[in-house]
């Protein structure tokens, strides 16, 4: 237990629980109180989706992510698409266009070779679409019963253009908060097939590479302040991470947040909040007010930003907290999720 720092909120969890991988408060505590002290590097302390490093005078974005999704294939994509686009998007949030990826496979004994082939083909197609090359890889096999068929880890690197510095610490009151499109789509698509739930409408994952959209935004101005792709924990987690790291408050207008009817309906049935549902092809941007209109126009001109919309702003009030103006005119705090959302009883 040498890695514990005080206070040690993980002490009440002597074993890992699912929430430690849910992208919420438990995940953050695991990193901050166990991994970060153990590794101790200054770059890791940035705690971004990707690390910005300088190597031989060149600024690189470097990121890694693991994919453990069930089922392996879902409406709108597969674990292969996620494994490429997830890491490509983490790099894109640093302003970098992904150049090279690694692909590490942990295969379960007994999984059909045709399934592995389909996943690999999906990864290849996704990599070509994102303009990134899978340059290195590794394969391990675990005994039957010790995995869900296929786990994938991808790491990636890309160049950060000169003049681009995307960090939550750059957020200032007055920044405009823009989301690139409808939220909650990926999470609901996965739930619909994973749990065998029928929501009365087909909904496909929004899984997509965001590098091109980011480049079109940076073409308007390199002075974007921060970008996040709101995956695990959804939009709420992304906004909370930015608010806490920047020290600014964030206010969003709940009625401005684009929640498509199938997502709203599924969440209503399950007692979930769409703000906490995962996305895989969306980004949230904090943009200086003077550039907001131009950036929004550029986003809307791109296929992956056609439904981009302003949802709120950074404020000097309630530092570190995200507050939503409700549709009826009240307000509420939008908290960092603890772990994964749980369907309610009734």
């Amino acid at each position, binding site marked *: 237990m040498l890695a514990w720092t005080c206070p040690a909120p993980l002490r009440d969890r002597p074993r890992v629980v699912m929430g430690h991988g849910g992208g919420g408060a438990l995940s953050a505590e695991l990193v901050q109180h166990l991994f970060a002290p153990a590794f101790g590097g200054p770059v890791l302390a940035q705690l971004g989706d990707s690390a910005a490093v300088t190597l031989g005078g060149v600024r690189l974005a470097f990121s890694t992510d693991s994919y453990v999704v069930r089922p392996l294939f879902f409406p709108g994509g597969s674990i292969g698409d996620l494994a490429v686009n997830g890491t490509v998007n983490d790099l894109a949030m640093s302003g970098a266009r992904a150049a090279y990826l690694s692909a590490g496979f942990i295969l379960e004994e007994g999984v059909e070779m045709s399934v592995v082939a389909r996943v690999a083909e999906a990864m290849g197609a996704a990599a070509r679409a994102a303009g990134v090359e899978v340059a290195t890889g590794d394969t391990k096999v675990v005994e039957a019963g010790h995995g869900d068929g296929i786990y994938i880890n991808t790491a990636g690197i890309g160049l950060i253009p000169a003049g681009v510095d995307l960090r939550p610490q750059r957020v200032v009151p007055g920044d405009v908060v823009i989301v690139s499109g409808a939220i909650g789509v990926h999470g609901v698509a996965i739930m619909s097939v994973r749990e065998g739930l029928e929501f009365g409408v087909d909904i496909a994952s929004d899984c997509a590479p965001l590098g091109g959209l980011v480049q079109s935004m940076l073409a308007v101005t390199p002075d974007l302040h921060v970008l996040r792709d709101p995956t695990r924990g959804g939009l709420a987690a992304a906004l909370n991470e930015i608010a806490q790291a920047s020290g600014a408050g964030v206010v969003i207008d709940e*009625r401005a947040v684009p929640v498509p009817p199938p997502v709203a*309906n599924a969440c209503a049935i399950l007692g979930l909040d769409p703000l906490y549902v995962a996305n895989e092809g969306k980004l949230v941007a904090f943009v200086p007010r003077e550039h907001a209109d131009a950036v929004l126009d550029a986003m809307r001109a791109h296929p992956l930003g056609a439904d981009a919309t302003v949802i709120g702003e950074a404020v000097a009030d309630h530092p570190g907290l995200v507050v939503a103006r409700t549709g*009826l*005119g009240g307000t509420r705090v939008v908290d960092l999720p603890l772990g994964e959302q749980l*369907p309610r009883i*009734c």
Partner: protein
Amino acid sequence: MKYIDEFQDPDLARRLLDDIHATVTRPWALMEVCGGQTHTIIRHGIDQLLPEQVELIHGPGCPVCVTPLEVIDKALEIASRPGVIFCSFGDMLRVPGTGRDLFQVRSEGGDVRVVYSPLDALKVAQQNPGREVVFFGIGFETTAPPNAMTVYQAKKLGIPNFSLLVSHVRVPPAIEAIMGSPGCRVQGFLAAGHVCSVMGMGEYPELAARHRVPIVVTGFEPLDILEGVRRAVHQLERGEHTVDNAYARAVRPEGNPAALAMLEDVFEVTDRAWRGIGIIPGSGWRLSERYRDFDAEHRFSVTGITTLEPAECRSGEVLQGLIKPNACEAFGTTCTPRNPLGATMVSSEGACAAYYLYRRLELTPARTAAPLETSPVA
């Protein structure tokens, strides 16, 4: 969504609020019984928009919150046993028992599964004939009929490895207990619409008459809540105390006869302990003699349970509407959703969690807690 968006319309909400503001002439305290209503009120900021004279007191209608610690501990014990598959709705997994929760049991090797219906648990039993499958059957009159149907099916299909850990509770005896409490300030009730969609409204006229309180059957969307408040306030201002149905699109006076017949067959009324409150006579259901073989408490002789409630947790008073969550000294300090002392801080339908999640911008924990009221049901 049809019949959802319409009930969140800001213009209609404003008209209802204007009516309430124009009607109120003095302070009134209304209790919304159901945790789902509490969640809607706090999430949409409805309480911020009502006149100051209208106070909403949050009732005991969160099934997660009122499940007794002893039952949670029994669930943890059963779920820990080898060969058991323990199935539950999702939000019960995070409820703290004595020292741990079902997530912890799962991390220690227990087979704990989230299901969306008790019938899913029955399927798990059919697919795993060599293992005991237990479903955690908790909740009010809303969740009791499907659980009853599942036990009925298990018996009919001859599925011997399925059982139900039952902790069902009923609303009317709880209203009775709350009204009988000496500290009770409740002058009107927003009754839980989904409960009434099953049970009908037959149990309420006598309660309304005897305690001289209006009872308005109310839905769960923002406009439902506002309409419930509006009707209750109109009655109070006129000195009336009748039962009114403001959720007619879902509630018939006679309820759901098929569900009632299923409840009558599978369950029998019993005294039931409510977490933080104590035993309320006739406030629960247990499996009837005909279905006793499917009772997990009988099947798994769970003994030696020693429960330990944190002394500083005042969730019982919160559940009875005697204090607001932020009147508890532990609120937001030693008690948060991250480290809940009581179940009211776990479920998003619990008043404490709702206040913490949505309201802590304007709330600070009380340094001096309100005087403790004695409860006749403790």
